[in-house]
């Protein structure tokens, strides 16, 4: 039964939400009202109606961001949020040192990732936890869904190296799933149903996540002191990238991000969302309520739920559990895509999952805020085609207006009837919209003035202000490109078409001219054509349209230049786009840097073999290690045995290069085939064995 205090808290929660959504509603009504008054000279045309509808949707969408940032600004300005999860329970926490933490699993689900970076990150987190003195309360799980045989074996060796060098026996675990059904959801489900019983909490990471030990400990303590909370999400700060593009995004994430997350927490409170990683989850409710079903029908809207995180948070809320965003917990990091093209590729993966949530919007039983999270996820991609439509409709309306001939004398009037000017209303609408988009950047800069130390970590006022201006220019240039990318993704998904891009590259790398032309050639052509047409037919509109046109026409050079690591380094030397994590590197980031350079303990990892797959067949140690990590399984059936025999024969005849990655995987996933090949290689060594 709810206590009176709890009741009061709930009233306050609802009051906050009422205030927040009233602000959005009032702002939208005012802006749309201004637009209606500008349109409503001689009745609303069909085109104007379409424009009004689009403007209402898009304006209310940017209002959510604006008011979140605005509220966040005041929260940070006046200290912190009284109702934040970390402050709310801070008073109830006893002395940190005295608390015995329950055992928590740190999960790293991976799929064909750069294993060197994955393990270096895990070791950095491990070391950071050692610094807190609470390492004994944490176990590490590398949950591999990797299919590439070379990466698989590399992961096994790195696991062994981590166990050996960190004395991680019984604390650092590794498993590779024989079948990677249901992707990441299936991977986590496999952990929960097999080993979840050992732990009360799990902290889910991503391949490029990093978290400070002290933050991990605090997350466990907060959950421990509040039995009604099932999930706490921390806001991951983007770090560690060197390309200009990524540094600009890191800067934006750092300087504006905290304001937005503080604002989100203001109205979401215990009905927050899950972003898939850098979050702590209570395992039992996750087991009880987060078994995801398949949606009826085929892809893109049916089948497996792709963006599982939103749905899991909604299911927890449906079951009465609280989900919080700990906006004020620092020490949570992630790495972002290094180039504009990689950023778009990531969007492609997320887009389909988020659009699938359209079907869940009206599903029965979900909390209203969970529905809003689904809606916001959908809108983050649908907004792009809507903006495009809005721009096209605005151009068409401008053209139609231009074609209308003004009549000054009509009817019985002997005096000319001057057309009424709505320039003031239109300018107000434009200014309000621009303020909604750009004011948060100014507010973020103002917030820096409050904290001198923080201001210094952004390079001082001049550097921070210049960076904000340049970041704004950059975001204006890239916004139309991302709009076209996302529109293409949405259309492709709706038409059941795969966009067909290869896997995302996480490490810093420069975009080649060819890659840029292939990705942005269409954008450039669209920009040029639109520019010429609008200049010829609606010159007044052309000048308003120039920021969008410039972004499209310059997309190839902007994409190439922004991917440059050298330019990124130069900007850093000039004090531009600095973030606190660059100015004073936190220990966990320093550990990562050291780990990436440090030589592994296992000598075999220091060698760079021709192929880890072939090494598994030949090297007795790698072979033995791999065999020891294969799960117990039934002997293969007759047909599968014939298939494996065929592959062995193929390898005998044509060598390992004749096998595909999946065939290689099938061979080394079968213990009997692996033993047979090991003996084959040693009894009948190939001519090139010395070079293997």
């Amino acid at each position, binding site marked *: 039964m709810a206590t009176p205090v709890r009741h009061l808290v709930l009233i306050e929660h609802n009051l906050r939400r009422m205030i927040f959504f009233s602000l959005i509603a009032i702002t939208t009504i005012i802006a749309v009202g201004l637009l209606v008054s500008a349109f409503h000279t001689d009745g609303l045309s069909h085109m104007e109606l379409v424009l009004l509808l689009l403007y209402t949707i898009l304006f209310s969408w940017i209002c959510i961001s604006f008011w979140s940032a605005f509220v966040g600004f005041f929260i940070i300005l006046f200290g912190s949020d009284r109702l934040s999860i970390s402050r709310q329970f801070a008073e109830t926490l006893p002395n940190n040192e005295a608390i015995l933490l329950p055992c928590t699993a740190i999960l790293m689900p991976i799929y064909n990732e750069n294993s060197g970076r994955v393990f270096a990150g895990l070791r950095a987190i491990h070391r950071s936890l050692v610094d807190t003195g609470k390492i004994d309360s944490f176990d590490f799980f590398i949950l591999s869904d990797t299919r590439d045989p070379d990466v698989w074996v590399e992961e096994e060796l790195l696991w062994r190296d981590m166990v*050996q060098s960190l004395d991680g026996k019984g604390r650092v675990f590794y498993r590779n799933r024989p079948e990677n059904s249901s992707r990441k959801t299936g991977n986590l489900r496999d952990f929960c*149903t097999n080993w979840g*019983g050992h732990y009360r909490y799990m902290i889910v990471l991503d391949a490029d996540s990093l978290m400070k030990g002290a933050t991990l400990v605090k997350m466990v303590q907060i959950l421990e002191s509040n039995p009604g909370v099932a999930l706490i999400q921390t806001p991951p700060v983007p770090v560690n990238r060197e390309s200009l593009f990524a540094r600009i995004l890191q800067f934006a994430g750092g300087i504006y991000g905290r304001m937005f997350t503080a604002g989100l927490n203001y109205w979401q409170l215990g009905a927050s969302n899950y972003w898939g990683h850098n979050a702590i989850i209570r395992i039992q409710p996750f087991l009880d309520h987060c078994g*995801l079903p398949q949606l009826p029908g085929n892809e893109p809207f049916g089948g497996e739920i792709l963006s599982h995180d939103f749905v899991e948070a909604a299911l927890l809320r449906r079951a009465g559990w609280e989900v919080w965003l700990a906006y004020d917990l620092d020490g949570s990091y992630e790495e972002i895509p290094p180039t504009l093209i990689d950023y778009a590729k990531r969007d492609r993966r997320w887009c389909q999952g988020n659009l699938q949530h359209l079907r869940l919007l009206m599903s029965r039983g979900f909390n209203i805020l969970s529905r809003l999270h689904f809606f916001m996820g959908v809108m983050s991609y649908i907004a792009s085609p809507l903006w495009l439509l809005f721009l096209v409709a605005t151009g068409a309306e401008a053209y139609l207006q231009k074609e209308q001939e003004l009549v000054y004398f009509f009817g019985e009037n002997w005096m000319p009837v001057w057309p009424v000017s709505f320039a003031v209303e239109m300018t107000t609408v434009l200014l309000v919209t621009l303020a909604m988009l750009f004011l948060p950047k100014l507010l973020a800069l103002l917030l820096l003035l409050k904290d001198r130390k923080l201001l210094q970590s952004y390079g001082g006022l001049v550097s921070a202000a210049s960076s904000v201006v340049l970041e704004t220019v950059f975001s204006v240039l890239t916004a139309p490109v991302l709009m076209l990318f996302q529109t293409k993704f949405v259309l492709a998904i709706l038409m059941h078409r795969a966009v067909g891009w290869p896997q995302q590259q996480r490490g810093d790398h420069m975009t080649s001219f060819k890659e840029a032309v292939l990705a942005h050639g269409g954008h450039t052509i669209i920009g040029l054509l639109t520019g010429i047409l609008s200049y010829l037919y609606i010159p007044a509109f052309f000048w308003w349209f120039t920021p969008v046109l410039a972004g499209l026409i310059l997309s190839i050079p902007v994409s190439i230049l922004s991917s440059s690591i050298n330019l990124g380094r130069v900007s850093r030397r000039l004090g531009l786009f600095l973030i606190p994590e660059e100015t004073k590197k936190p220990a966990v980031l320093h550990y990562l840097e050291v780990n990436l350079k440090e030589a592994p303990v296992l000598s075999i990892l220091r060698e760079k073999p021709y192929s880890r797959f072939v090494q598994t067949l030949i090297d*007795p140690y790698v072979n*033995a*290690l791999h*065999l020891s990590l294969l799960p117990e399984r039934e002997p293969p059936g007759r047909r599968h045995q014939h298939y494996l025999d065929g592959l062995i024969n193929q390898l005998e005849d044509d060598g390992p290069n004749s096998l595909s990655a999946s065939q290689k995987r099938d061979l080394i996933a079968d213990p009997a085939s692996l033993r047979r090949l090991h003996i084959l290689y040693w*009894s009948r060594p190939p001519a090139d064995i010395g070079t293997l």
Partner: protein
Amino acid sequence: MDRSKVDTNYSATYLPPAVNQPSSEFLLGRLKSYWQSMGVTDPMQVVVLSKRALQHAYRLPEQPEIDPVARALIGASAVLDDWLIRSLNLQNNPGNLKAARAALLSGVMPGWPNMVLYPPGTDEHPLDALRLAIAKPTPELIPRAMPTQQIRLFSLFGLFRLLWRKICHT
């Protein structure tokens, strides 16, 4: 037409054909390479271990698809496994045997060939290092259920049915 390209020996495969009647030199040569790849460097130890491997190989049941060299190499593996089973009491525990073999070959016990050649129990100290190095990849299983949740999607038909029920009810 370049005949040399056509006339290349069709049977020239990536792995050379099996030697069905190898000389003892050839057999010992292969065993030597195998032991060396496992870190046995002392020539005397190589010889003794190879003899044991051959003794094991002779005891293996006849299998036509396994050639004599392969049989000898299987014997070498068996020498190692037998010693691990006896020394670490790993009877009936194939999982632990595999982990022990991996730990042994990782180099945590550099003098292991000596240990294999001496009867078990002579010096237990190096075995402790081996026991310590045996790491299980995962903890014990504790199976838990994760029931699939029901998500009732919105459908117009469902809405009409609900309305109809309400109308009928009133």
